[in-house]
């Protein structure tokens, strides 16, 4: 059955797959996670602020991102970015933004909505007493939030944040729809060029599986260690 298959194509394209494709994937994952958590935390703070001027836009943004398919958002930003760039830089023509930059902005802003909900749950799980105690000691709200509440919230939500990162890692494959060369894109290019779809897509599936499995096992292990310490 496997006589017609040429698994050599995998070994031959390994450098391309990993140096071009996987580095793009991992870089996008890492940067989008960091940016997403930062913006997500800001959004969470806005939603918990109590002032309508902050909560309403934040809530609207989060709900919008969560109502719409990621693929559609990727298209939105892909076409929107040149015009936003033009508006920001006041140039005559729509700004040509690179593929990576476009993807980074898309992923960061999209995932921020999900990180927002995670951080919101995390912040709310820290008892009000903590904030009260901090303020009773004379700390301002920002200081108390920054030094007392957020550190604890992060620690509590670390496993969930990491799980969302794994989801982000898998979602990077969707950049395929704008023909960007991430790991899947690279595998796809090789598959089409050499006519080896079965081998390449199977290989891609296996690689994603191994990485995701290892990552989620690590998260579970970390979760157990944190639980023991607590």
């Amino acid at each position, binding site marked *: 059955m496997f006589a017609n298959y040429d698994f050599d194509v995998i070994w031959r394209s390994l450098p391309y797959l990993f140096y071009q494709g996987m580095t793009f994937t991992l870089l996008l994952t890492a940067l989008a996670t960091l940016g997403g958590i930062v913006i997500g935390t800001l959004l969470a703070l806005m939603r918990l602020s109590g002032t309508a001027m902050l909560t309403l836009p934040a809530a609207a943004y989060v709900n919008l991102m969560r109502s719409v*398919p990621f*693929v559609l958002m990727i298209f939105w930003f892909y076409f929107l970015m040149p*015009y936003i760039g033009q508006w920001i830089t006041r140039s005559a023509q729509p700004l040509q933004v690179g593929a990576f930059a476009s993807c980074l902005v898309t992923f960061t802003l999209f995932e921020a909505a999900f990180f927002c909900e995670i951080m919101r749950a995390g912040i709310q799980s820290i008892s009000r007493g903590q904030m009260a105690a901090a303020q009773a000691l004379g700390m301002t709200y920002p200081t108390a939030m920054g030094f007392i509440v957020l550190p604890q919230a992060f620690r509590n939500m670390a496993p969930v944040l990491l799980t969302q990162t794994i*989801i982000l890692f898998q979602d990077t*494959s969707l950049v395929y729809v704008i023909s960007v060369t991430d790991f899947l894109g690279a595998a796809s290019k090789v598959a089409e060029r050499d006519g080896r779809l079965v081998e390449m897509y199977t290989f891609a599936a296996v690689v*994603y599986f191994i990485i995701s499995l290892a990552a989620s096992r690590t998260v579970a292990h970390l979760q157990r260690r944190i639980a023991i310490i607590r």
Partner: protein
Amino acid sequence: MNYHWNWAIFWELSPDGVHTYFQTLLLGTGWTLATAACAWIIALTLGSLVGALRTMPFAAAVRFGNVYVELFRDVPLLVQMFLWYFVVPEIVPHAFGTWLKQLPNASFYTAVVALGLYMSARVAEQVRAGILSLPRGQRQAALALGLTLPQTYAYVLLPMTYRIIMPPLTSELLNTIKNSAVALTIGLMELTARARAMQEFSFQVFEAFTAATIIYIVINIVVTLAMRVVERRIAVPGYLGFKAPAAGH
């Protein structure tokens, strides 16, 4: 901004010569909802089964359930769709493979299977969590009355589980609808694909994507409200309810 706005584009004829752009978007919406509905049926059935298996007192069943969930959860949906669409027809017996490749609406069936199985793993997680959250005595009381294990799951454990996991299950239903968009990569002309096609042919980028966005938001609102009605109708009088955590997308 050098963009030429034309909101009347929706009423203009699309390249297929028969439908207006608006009608193509509606056709796409139909495919989106059909794909999501069929996939959800698969997801709910298989997911409940696997979720229940993971709570049974048989090590083999639990292991099978865990492997199943891990398999469908650790590979991106897009890759899974490619596997079903490109790889499966090649590795099955030749005659079957040829038949698969010539199937009309192949992308629809592929999308339904791929999406259904992918979401079934997530449903299984919810069902398992729901069953485990029930008091241990429920299972014991059912068994003590002489109900067999399948009867215990069917009449006692699963009915309460579904009520408990309604909120996260609603999330997963909405995710199913959103994830149907991934099938545009294998040729399914669902809503996002139609919006993209409209953009490609008419160059009215923002009109096309705004329309799609609004339609998705409307679907979201309708489904959420409908599920809330269902939740209220099946609510058990006097039961205080359990707050289950929400799922990531």
